[in-house]
């Protein structure tokens, strides 16, 4: 795939269709891949990479990139196209300035999961028939491919590209995923258990803002948490309340806009399952207001910007499930 993508990019550059390419750049190890902009065939040959570790969603970079002169080629995985489409809906990207090539998505790998197996000193990772052969300074190691798959890919919602100019490889379908299982499990706990669960998780937060800054839905010119006039600006979780508040507001601000791309949890240095908060909103929206997938199209109204006269009342929350 990588070869084909490089060739496609070179051709589009040569034909003058685009003048730069956003993709992924090889790093020092097998897995430390950085999103990058390439402007020449030489650069592409030298360091463009597309492999099992290119999980980063490049859609958000297009907010900035699409406002520059010229046209940029973006390789988007299925999940990335949802993010991009949502940005189109919110007028955050200039669609005309992006040439989208849809590419097959994951499952992508999580280096942390390999390391969690005690494998360290990683020099290279190869996928041989869904067994990872890992060369390390301590010798050869191996593990099953699927045990190293990113959580976000393990509960993939769709293999379909919802927006593109051109497609490479075969188009996939929207999948039946088990993505709400964990949310449901939590819902079935008692309030005390849920409280304890989230306290344990959110107390790990170091407020690095990685979840917010990587989120393709969080593209505010100035975030309320960075704005001293907003009344809720803060830089560090000085109290458990602030840990809670940051994550409630963060999730609420993307409610109905979050495409469930899973980047927030992927980048969290403390492994907080932040996507569960987003998925809770998605699950509620589906249950209360009908199935809705943000980013599926670029025109429909976000559920929080819409209403029906016979919507359920807020006390539905008080009436259901265990306390």
């Amino acid at each position, binding site marked *: 795939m990588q070869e084909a993508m490089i060739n496609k990019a070179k051709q589009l550059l040569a034909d003058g269709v685009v003048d730069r390419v956003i993709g992924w750049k090889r790093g020092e190890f097998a897995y430390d891949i950085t999103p990058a902009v390439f402007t020449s065939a030489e650069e592409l040959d030298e360091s463009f990479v597309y492999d099992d570790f290119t999980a980063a969603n490049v859609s958000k970079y297009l907010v900035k990139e699409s*406002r520059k002169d010229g046209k940029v080629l973006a390789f988007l995985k299925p999940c990335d196209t949802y993010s991009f489409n949502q940005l189109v*809906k*919110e*007028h*955050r990207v200039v669609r005309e300035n992006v040439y989208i090539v849809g590419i097959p998505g994951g499952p992508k790998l999580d280096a942390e999961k390999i390391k969690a197996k005690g494998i360290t000193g990683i020099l290279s990772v190869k996928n041989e028939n869904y067994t990872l052969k890992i060369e390390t300074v301590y010798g050869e190691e191996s593990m099953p491919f699927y045990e190293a798959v990113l959580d976000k890919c393990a509960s993939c919602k769709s293999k379909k590209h919802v927006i593109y100019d051109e497609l490479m490889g075969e188009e996939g379908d929207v999948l039946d995923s088990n993505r709400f299982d964990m949310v449901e499990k939590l819902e079935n706990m008692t309030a005390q258990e849920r409280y304890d669960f989230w306290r344990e998780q959110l107390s790990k937060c170091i407020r690095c803002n990685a979840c917010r800054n990587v989120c393709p839905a969080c*593209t*505010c*010119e*100035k*975030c*309320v948490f960075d*704005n001293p*006039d*907003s*009344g809720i600006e803060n830089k560090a979780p000085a109290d458990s309340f602030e840990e809670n508040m940051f994550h409630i507001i963060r999730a609420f*601000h*993307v409610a109905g806009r979050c495409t469930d791309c899973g980047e927030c949890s992927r980048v969290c240095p403390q492994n907080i399952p932040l996507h569960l908060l987003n998925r809770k909103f998605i699950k509620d929206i589906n249950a209360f207001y009908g199935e809705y997938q943000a980013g599926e199209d670029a025109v429909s*109204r*976000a559920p*929080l*910007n*819409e209403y029906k*006269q016979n919507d359920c009342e807020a006390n539905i929350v008080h009436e259901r499930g265990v306390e």
Partner: protein
Amino acid sequence: MQRIGVFVCHCGTNIAATVDVKAVAEALGREPGVIVSQDYQYMCSESGQNLVKNAIKEHKLTGVVVCSCSPRMHENTFRNAAASAGLNPYLVEIANIREQCSWIHKDIASATEKAIILGKAAVAKVHLNAPLTAGESPVVKRALVIGGGIAGIQTALDIAEAGFDVDIVEKKPTIGGKMAQIDKTFPTLDCAACILTPKMVEASQNEHITIHSYSEVADVKGFVGNFTVTIKKKARFVDETKCTGCGLCTEKCPMKKVPNEFNMGFDNRSAIYIPFAQAVPKVATIDPNNCMMMKTGKCGVCSKVCSAGAIDYKQEDRLIEQQYGAIVVATGFEPIKLDKYDEFAYNQCPDVVTSLELERLMNAAGPNGGTLLRPSDKTHPHKIVFVQCVGSRCDDSKGKPYCSKICCMYTAKHAMLIREKYPDTEVYVFYIDVRTPGKNFDEFYRRAVEQYNVHYIKGMVGKVTPRSDGKIDVQASDLLANEQLHIDADMVVLAAAIEPDKTARPLATMLTTQMDTNDFFTEAHPKLRPVESATAGIFLSGACQGPKDIPETVAQASAAAAKAIVLLVKNSITCNPCVAHSDELMCNGCSSCEKVCPYGAITYIDKEFKMPDRTIAVRRVASVNPAVCQGCGACTVACPSGAMDLNGFSNSQIIAEVDAICK
């Protein structure tokens, strides 16, 4: 530094009996920024107000807090007092320590404590109050009336009478609407045409009224006082300015087999036609779907016979743009389609007709020249059954949930007219309830029963079956006799429910006005503002707001006109200063706010900005029109970046109140 004055009212004993007003004044006097804190018997009295005014002048106050009754009572009083003393009126806050404190609590200690907290919240808020000035927005002295039925005509005439220019947009080739098709009107039984057509002529001749017939509203922009409307004048292939309405073309037109919609399809018209004799404007229109010239390019007879040279086969739709200060919606109603009601055999049997069809069948200008004949065999019917509430008062899945209001009366009218003209005819009316609230209405209905011997039977018709002998079997229950009836009728007349015109829904979207689930326009207040929509500058006339008979329609039309005139006489409108505004530097241009604005007050503009990273960028940012915004604040919450805020109820003000209360 703020210089805030606090004024605690005793309200006689209303407050002072349960709240220790001295303690409140003293406690609030210790709050940061408060430099004077007083109590007084009656703050709202003239001497009380003077106390406030003098303090403003003497202490150079920058903010005033009055602890008194509800702001719904006297907020304006104290704002005006402040303004007269030179303080911006929006620097006044009221702490409600009467309705929400002294009147509901009994314990003096706790009521006093609560009054202090409420006072502190008001002080905290007033710290952040900004002086606000109500903006002004000019008013274009021209009105648009959408719909040229009796409602639209009446509204236009009234507005014109007041001296304002007014345009009527009517989608049909002539104005007149449904009333033009009606034979007689209840309860007086005068001829509809006789009272309507003079009004139509009056409208056409009024120098202030411009009629755009065969036209539609294509786009609406702007806001109260300053709407820009694009009107699409559909091509009628006849030059309106040249056509004299002589009618020669319609006589000579070889294509004469077009069902005549004015007569509900009971007879035919030509491809070039004038809907009816008294049409206004009396101008011919070519129906391009049936004209041979338009379809095949062969014919051109009308063009040859027209001495005025008015025929123009090449005419195209034309868009005209016009500014208006006010818009009146008068889109009226349509009878519902009866396809869903197989049991009444409407689609199988030509002798089952709707009431509107009966109007044409009985009209002197109708297909039979005023003689009531069965459509099937043109014989005189001897037994006629009327069925009430067809499609009205239904469960949502079965029809319209509302009462169509006019059917009881027109059915009584029909029954009476038929019995009067053809005494040999038996008339049955099957009803659920007879609803006749209205001046002389019940008397009218009783006359039908007592004087004209119309058989009113309580019970609904269950099934209508055309028989091979030409009779129609009507099966119904007589609930009072507790028996099932079979009537072999000659004709069945269905009182079909009425619904808003199909064009109303897209129009409402253009106007950003609200509609109910039945597509009737929603009035701004069901009791107190029945002819205004919630969108400023848009008024409602006639049946577009709900089912209405003619007198009610005319009354509402004049009321809407009056409301429009009230707007048009002003040179400018004072806006509510407590409106939303967007911080352009923070706005993402994501359109969330626009989506939740019920007034269409938010638009987006591309604007050049010097960005924090020293670059120049063109960004899409929200812009609130303060003349349209009503200040609900929905946008402020929809905005993820917090760029949108509300004057008078800003984020920081509300947070300050929360903080003060939770201290």
